[in-house]
């Protein structure tokens, strides 16, 4: 990737539009009557916005990056860059916890070379913050992926190899085969909800903090 491209992505990232808060109005698409089946107890309604404003942002000082309009974001970023510069000038030392490369004064059109960018990413990669994010991510998704794949394959293999088991009646016309099939729906919805909750509570905030930090250094 050329430095120009990097700079482009950088500016594109800053122009990012925040997600408008999703309305949950039309979330319920499950026919109500299916509720009698062991249908998904929980439709994976996209989670409500976490109360970002009330909690201390990693470095945003209570600014809600997710919900802000592009203009507000731009302003906030400019303000922070300004603050950071002022602080650096005043204290003559970096404010970031990890010091990867010499921090040049961020000027218009000042793009770091490939090697410097690599050093920035390397430093971010080695930071304790990043390791924590990665561990949390992997500790959830690897076992979860393995579990749902095995559960699905078990179901598929049972469907062809265990006709007696599948034919066993459970309640009325419902037999094991249908029960297992509907449980696949339930487990999919449940795992989706668990993953969304895990990511929201354990990763998002830290990842966002590290993102701005890394991008500041790439500047």
């Amino acid at each position, binding site marked *: 990737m050329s430095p120009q491209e*990097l700079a482009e*992505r950088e500016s*594109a*990232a800053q122009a*990012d*539009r*925040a*997600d*408008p808060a999703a*309305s949950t109005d039309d*979330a319920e*698409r*499950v*026919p109500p009557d299916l509720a009698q089946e062991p249908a*998904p107890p929980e*439709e994976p*309604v*996209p989670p409500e916005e976490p109360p970002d404003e009330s909690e201390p942002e990693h470095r945003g000082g209570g600014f809600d990056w997710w919900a802000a309009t592009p203009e507000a974001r731009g302003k906030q970023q400019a303000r922070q860059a300004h603050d950071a510069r002022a602080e650096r000038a005043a204290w003559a030392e970096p404010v970031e916890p990890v010091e990867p490369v010499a921090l040049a004064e961020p000027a218009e059109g000042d793009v770091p070379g490939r090697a410097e*960018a*690599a050093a920035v*990413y*390397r430093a*971010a*990669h*080695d930071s304790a913050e*990043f390791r924590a*994010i*990665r561990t949390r991510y992997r500790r959830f*998704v690897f076992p979860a*992926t393995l579990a*749902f794949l095995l559960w*699905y394959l078990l*179901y*598929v*293999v049972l469907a*062809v190899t265990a*006709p007696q088991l*599948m*034919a066993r009646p459970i309640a*009325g*016309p*419902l037999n094991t*085969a*249908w029960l297992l*099939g509907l449980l*696949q*729906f339930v487990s*999919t919805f449940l795992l*989706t909800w668990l*993953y*969304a909750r895990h*990511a929201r509570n354990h990763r*998002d905030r830290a*990842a*966002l903090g*590290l*993102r701005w930090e*890394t*991008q500041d250094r*790439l500047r």
Partner: protein
Amino acid sequence: MAAGLFVLVVLVTLGITLWAGRRSRAAEDFYAGGREFSPLQNGFAISGDYMSAASFLGVTGLIALYGYDGLLYTIGFLVGWLLVLMLVAELVRNCGRYTLADVLSLRMRQRPVRAAAGISSIVVSLFYLLGQMVGAGSLVALLLHLHSAASRDWSIVGIGVLMVVYVTVGGMKATTWIQIVKCVLLLGGTLLLTVLVLVRFHGDLGTLMRSAAHDSGQGSAYLLPGLHFGHSLTDQLDFISLGLALVLGTGGLPHILARFYTVPTARAARRSAIWAIGLVGSFYLMTIVLGLGAAAVIGGPALRAANAAGNTAVPQLAGAMGGTVLLALTSAVAFATILAVVAGLTLASSTSFAHDLWARAFRHPGEPQPSEHQEVVVARIAAVVIGALAIVLSLYAQKLNVAVLVGIAFAVAASANLPALIFNLFWHRFTTRGATWAIYGGLIPCLALVVISPVVSGNAAAIFPTAHFDWFPLQNPGLVSVPCGFLFGWLGTVTSRRHADPDAYAELEVRALTGAGAA
């Protein structure tokens, strides 16, 4: 009336296309819709891209005819989304710009991996496109009561021309809006029919299942596995193969991956995947009710008489529940579904061609890269060429079973795209050679096995019924070719002379998990 509604669908979608086309200038608009869709919008668009006519009409028909075996399709189509949600959506959004090859070339040598990923993406899209258009031709003819072979051909040509117009004029923005509109229509239509079926059975699902089993003419076997897929060892292996392809293929479908680039952040990508799972899951739950309802209300023999594959189960059910009006509405929904899905596929393959192959892989090392403007021009031309190719191929592939074609597309995606993507994201030793070997090592066995399968020769339903080179017994190659993709990816990596660049992997990991430097 159905014809009038079809015209209305065409006019509305063309209107959207013109509206969006006038607002698209940059490459980012054409490929990624300006990256300004909300998770809700993108969730609907993803569902729109994913819930094809094959699902709406085909799977419902399979449930109506074969009961339990139809349910297996819906589960495979849904469960695959967990893989997309947890391993693919956010990371791909953070690492790439427009295509799968972008993610690979972040840490690999650009030209070989772009060539490989570009080719495999186009092959997947073409198979999928073929399945959709073959189905579309017969469906439109059926829905409009045109029974000659010529009218079916003209339906395919008409749909092909429309999809090319959507893509070349409107790009990703138009395609996304068409998907959203289509998804709302489809879910609305399905919900209405579901409610009508449930009302007819007084909300008693037990009665519904019992009368479906009784009226299907199959009795208790209707509620058990094996009616559709059979009981021989080959049938069982074929079924497991299809199951594997469906669950692993979703994460490698280029038109689904491209959808995650239309939102601004990885978090938005995750939320759109969550929306998609909710919508797709609800949709498939409703198709189960519709399938059972069709069996119970219409009855197996009447369904089979109208269409041996059960593709008309939904229109027939609509006609029985709500007369001509509902029948026309359902047909229009099915038509919108077909148009939207083929447009998404054409866009994904033309993006792969222009962005990966033409602008990057087919360049000499010293040659300057073309401008984004030139790239988009080439993408539009590619859309025309791919559209024409798809039309011609579909005219010759009309004999093939739609579900089989879609199953093969999923198998190619699962064997060629997914191993490379997963290794690239999670294995620090993975090298350029590993990536190209994974892609070609999955793609080539997969295609070769299809050629020597019963789909191509050896039986009355094959392309060459009289020739006999059907040495591979399974219709779906996934059971063999997916492990091949992973195996060759590993083999290519361990035999590489060059080691993987740890800095490049560090950058990929940081970007993937934090979104730093994301487009």
